[in-house]
């Protein structure tokens, strides 16, 4: 499939690996989510995540570990970006703010998994292909929209009310990040009224190949 046919080729280029070669369940779910986003657009990530979790009977610990893996990605991405993306002016302040938030999300999610008696997944190795500030911004926008979609897809699968409330507090912040990054790229900060917009038939058609 050529890049012209991908909704987000920059997502397709992101790599997630483990030194040991053993991918965790969360790694695989995240790779799937990024693949769905790359091909169909970030609005499909939520429905994919929801169906994948429903199909595999994920516990709250599993869901939190998936969120943790996503937050590892974002935390690493923004931490690297402070130097690598050469942000200046307003963008510099924004990168610092988001980097701090994502790191706090990582810590909170890992702590919650432990509190629930689970084992937090380790941080995988990431490779984020971009070569300038513009490339960074494009990827940032896509990651933030992906994160919002993923959390909103996972939400209805969470069993504990407390975990749901806590996840809600995180996703709202991701949405705020998403809007702020979009203001930097000149894109519509809130392009659609629903995150993700759901057209059931379209969604089923899109995610079917991943779950057949």
């Amino acid at each position, binding site marked *: 499939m050529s890049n012209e046919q991908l909704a987000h080729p920059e997502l397709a280029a992101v790599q997630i690996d483990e030194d040991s070669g053993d991918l965790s369940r969360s790694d695989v779910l995240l790779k799937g989510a990024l693949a769905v986003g790359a091909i169909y657009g970030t609005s499909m990530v939520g429905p994919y995540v929801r169906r994948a979790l429903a199909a595999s009977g994920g516990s709250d610990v599993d869901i939190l570990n998936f969120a943790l893996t996503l937050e590892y990605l974002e935390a690493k991405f923004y931490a690297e970006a402070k130097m690598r993306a050469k942000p200046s002016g307003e963008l510099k302040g924004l990168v610092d703010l988001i980097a701090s938030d994502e790191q*706090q999300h990582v810590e909170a999610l890992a702590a*919650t998994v432990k509190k629930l008696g689970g084992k937090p997944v380790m941080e995988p190795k990431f490779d984020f292909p971009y070569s300038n500030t513009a490339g960074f911004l494009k990827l940032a926008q896509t990651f933030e929209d992906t994160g919002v979609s993923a*959390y*909103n897809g996972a939400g209805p699968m969470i069993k504990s009310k*407390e975990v749901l409330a*806590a996840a809600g507090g995180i996703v*709202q912040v991701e949405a705020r990040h998403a809007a702020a990054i979009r*203001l930097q790229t000149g894109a519509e900060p*809130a392009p659609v009224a629903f995150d993700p917009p759901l057209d059931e038939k379209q969604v089923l058609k899109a995610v079917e190949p991943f779950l057949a």
Partner: protein
Amino acid sequence: MAEIKDLAGPQSRRRFLAVGGGSAGLAAFLAACGDDSGTTMTTDSMGSGGGTSETAQFGKGDVGILNYALTLEYLETAFYADVVKSGLFKGADLETIRKFGQEEAEHVQALTQAVKSLGGKPAPEPKAEFPLKSAKSVLELAGTVENLGAAAYLGQAANIQSPEVLASALAIHSVEGRHAAVLNTLLGESITPDGAFAKPADVKTVLKSVEPFIVG
């Protein structure tokens, strides 16, 4: 015309959106996940004890929550419509306001449908009046309303019974978060007034804040 006495401005916003961040934010997050160490979030909005009694005035269970949200969305839609008509904004800011108003109107439609599909009676559109003295005060009010709206949805998420209603509520909640971040940016304020973890607002607080704008 209703007066905004205390509502516009960051000080009053903090009154109902408790500021947290850093270790305070993490502690609140863990408290939300069953930690009994005494750290509190707004526990009355957590939903474990109160269930949906907060929104009972709007209807039973999920219908009540949806109608509560619908009432807020009606107010937001009316507010943005008034602001567009006021002529206080031009250019890019006007386009932003117009777009946000359109999205709130879509929320009204979706929530109305959702209530009907549950066999409930959709809440009536309240008659509202908003003070529109200047572009600055309007932006401040918009910021207050959007941050409050996001917090209101967050406050109810855990009370929702149906996974489909929850999915819809979450889909709207994050859009309100986007709106809030944009307005905060236009006001030169932080995109995340609560830090890394957004705080919920309970029904009482939310209704008290919007009460001054409801006239009939």
